[in-house]
């Protein structure tokens, strides 16, 4: 089947998609966007987290056809060419990246959390950060530096908002 959707603002049209393919497979193997990662393919790790119409979801659990006509946002679209998003900068500075396989999904989930809290004019508390990121497994860092990075990003993005 043919699939048409918008990914990171660009319209993509791909043919010969097998109906059983996931959005994750289509992004990675058919659209040349392998940033979203395939760690478990059963919604248990969050490495493939993308925005679907602005809502973070596991791309591995979205059937390709379900994305027809939708807006998809991936890690590749967080920042413009040659730029870094404040969340990306914060992950680098805080040392929140080791192997980095969980990073793309975490960045999307963090961006969502920080944006939502900023919209409410506040910074997320630690317990809230933990609950918001509980769907993103990381095997390298023990999460401490990821929390540091989220706090750092939230501080900076709150500053931007003012």
């Amino acid at each position: 089947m043919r699939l048409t959707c918008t990914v990171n603002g660009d319209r993509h049209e791909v043919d010969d998609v097998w109906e059983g393919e996931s959005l994750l497979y289509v992004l990675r193997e058919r659209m040349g966007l392998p940033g979203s990662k395939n760690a478990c393919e059963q919604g248990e790790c969050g490495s493939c987290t993308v925005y679907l119409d602005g809502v973070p979801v596991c791309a591995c659990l979205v059937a390709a056809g379900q994305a027809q006509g939708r807006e998809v946002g991936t890690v590749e679209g967080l920042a413009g060419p040659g730029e870094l998003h404040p969340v990306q900068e914060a992950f680098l500075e805080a040392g929140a990246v080791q192997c980095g396989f969980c990073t793309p999904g975490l960045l999307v989930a963090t961006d969502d959390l920080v944006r939502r809290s900023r919209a409410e004019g506040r910074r997320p508390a630690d317990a809230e950060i933990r609950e918001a990121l509980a769907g993103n497994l990381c095997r390298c860092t023990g999460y401490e530096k990821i929390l540091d990075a989220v706090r750092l990003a939230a501080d900076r993005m709150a500053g931007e908002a003012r």
Partner: protein
Amino acid sequence: MSTPTRTPAGAPSSVGGPGGRIGDDAQRPDGVLKVRGEFAYASDLWMDDMLWGVTLRSPHPYARIRSVDVGPALAVPGVHAVLTSDDVPGEKVYGLELADQPVLALDVVRYQGEPVALVAADHPDTARRAAARIVVDYDVWEPVTDARAALGHPTWNQVHDAPAAVTELSRESAHLHPHGNLVRHLKVRKGDPEPTADVVVVGEYEVGMQDQAFLGPESGLAVPGEDGGVDLYVATQWLHVDQRQICSALAMPPEKVRLTLAGVGGAFGGREDLSMHVHACLLALHTGKPVKMSYNREESFFGHVHRHPATMRYEHGATRDGDLVYVKAEIFLDGGAYASSTPAVVGNAGTMGLGPYVVPNVHVDCYGAYTNNPPCGAMRGFGSVQTAFAYEAQMDALAAELGMDPVELRCRNAMELGSETPTGQVVDSPAPVAELLRRLVAMPLPPEPATGDDVDLRHMPGGVSNTTHGEGVRRGVGYAVAYKNVAFSEGFDDYSTARVRLEVVGGEAVATVHTAAAEVGQGLVTVEQQIARTELGVDAVVVHPKDTAVGSAGSSSASRQTYVTGGAVKAACEAVRGRVLERARGLVGRPAGDLRLDGGKVVSDLEGVALPLADVLGDDAVEETVEWRHRPTQALDPDTGQGFAHVQYAFSAHRAVVDVDTELGLVKVVEMACTQDVGKAINPQAVVGQIQGGTAQGLGLAVMEEILVRDGRVQNPSFTDYLIPTVLDMPPMRIEVLEYADPHAPYGLRGVGEAPNISSGPAVLAAIRQATGLPLRRVPVRPEHLTGT
């Protein structure tokens, strides 16, 4: 030769700046690519005309193969090749230490998940459907699933029953391999063979099978070369040991089997053994097309070795005052169907299985056995994790028996500089075991648990699942300390190779570091840059892609790469620097000894001469390749296990604070604190990251992580049922990093990665024991253990 459209990692970038030297929190050179989603992991590799390879695996843990019919698979449109062991041109078995594992099943399969056949097709789903059509006729046998039974040992019945004497290893179970079911038996004997003591504590312990659960599944892309050879881009821990085994299976010389490291999504030991390496090469050579193989999560559980499950019996004898008199231990490690690194794991468990304590009289028997369970091999902590649960539980039990504070008992018996290990080795660098513990005790404790209406469920055992508002919750605090050898031991010729080049490009001095040392996430590429910047006084350092075009670096395991490859990079930089300064000597008129490199210039401290490197080098590049070794170690005496087996030890200690819902058996780890001596923190931020990550993996084994195997079959090969800690399970940490230099090591550094993975779990167990008063002799602790259900 064609290269993949998405090229492998390598990260030839150079985050510059003077901030990236030894001792700085330098940022990763691959970090920007990783946060942008542009870092090419093995599973991201892609070529236009590539095929997808899949593996057909045995559903049975033990069976004879009567026949394999690949015809129905070949008939599926889109299939390009179906291969079996008949298609392996070279040696049909491989292995890290013993070549006993078939590349593809021969006549017998020995574990559930053993690869039987391969399919290459134009879509992964086509390949999977075709593989399902291969007809394999199995004669199913009764599997051997207990390590002690496999070795003909009696099983222990009760904790305090003395086990029957172990005599000859009788053959009660089927022999899984021609040489029997024993992979290795290590004996450590020291002091009085018949010691007696005032106080004796006996305990039996069991550790379940842990999985590395790296997030990036096994993947690689094999590309047939125009010379008839093959290029393999793969996520691995040791390119050259892979190359050796692939060459053997393909019957090809090393120059025809070229490996490049693809981006690695974590390793933790699980990538030491081959997975899809030979398979992808076989398919590529057979079809003449690039072949990608990428395991899914379920296959990953069958595609790599796990941490050895262990059953252990310890007897500790001490004086009334709390001085250890003797320890007797029997340790059984279930190696599963093939040897993998079981011999070395037995070596670690046997030699360090008593913990960082001074024990005058020692009697240890450590066995590694073949069974029909999943093969077990390397995982972070490597034989030391299992024994630490036992020896630290014993120390607590002994303290209770003596009425002593458990930390004081540990400090009283702690190793220190100059102590003799159970293997008769004198510890010849700082061993601040007691200090690590005392610093933990001095750290403030977290606030008491909240109760009543205003509890935040996220802080309670059970979390938002709303199982308690404080009812049944008891707090416990536990301590543990551990040690671990750094680098390869027992006389292994352990070395790394570094090629360093210094040149001026576009007016800027640029160093290039080329090693084959696998970057698996730990940050070795950062360390390589920091060392080159420090030694060569330049800002721009390119880390060459990791490949087999340079000599072996050894494995990214055993906490060894910063030590060994770091040492090699340092040595190669020194050689380059020597040549550059020698050249400069004539130009500046100072002896080379007075000169140094800094800021891309040759500097004399005496006269402040600053000669730009461009003036010294011109268009030349100065390049040196160095093979660097740490001090040699020795094989252990086969009868007594005595000898200088380990080049360096790493020490860490943990304090765990837990809240246990004693009625429901649910555990919330409230805080973890860790002290560790790292000799010299080359990159303090990365050091702390290793401690945090290692702590999380130890916590996971303590309370949730286990591959459940019944009758040789894995019951939970998924992230739905193999649980690793989430951010809600991992508590905040307090960390103190000590830096007591090891005079024998480059920069005085000490390997970091494994020690915190060893001491964290036993501390959690100690805390749970304190909260519940239960003996808890098995990990992971399940709610059933805490509730007697």
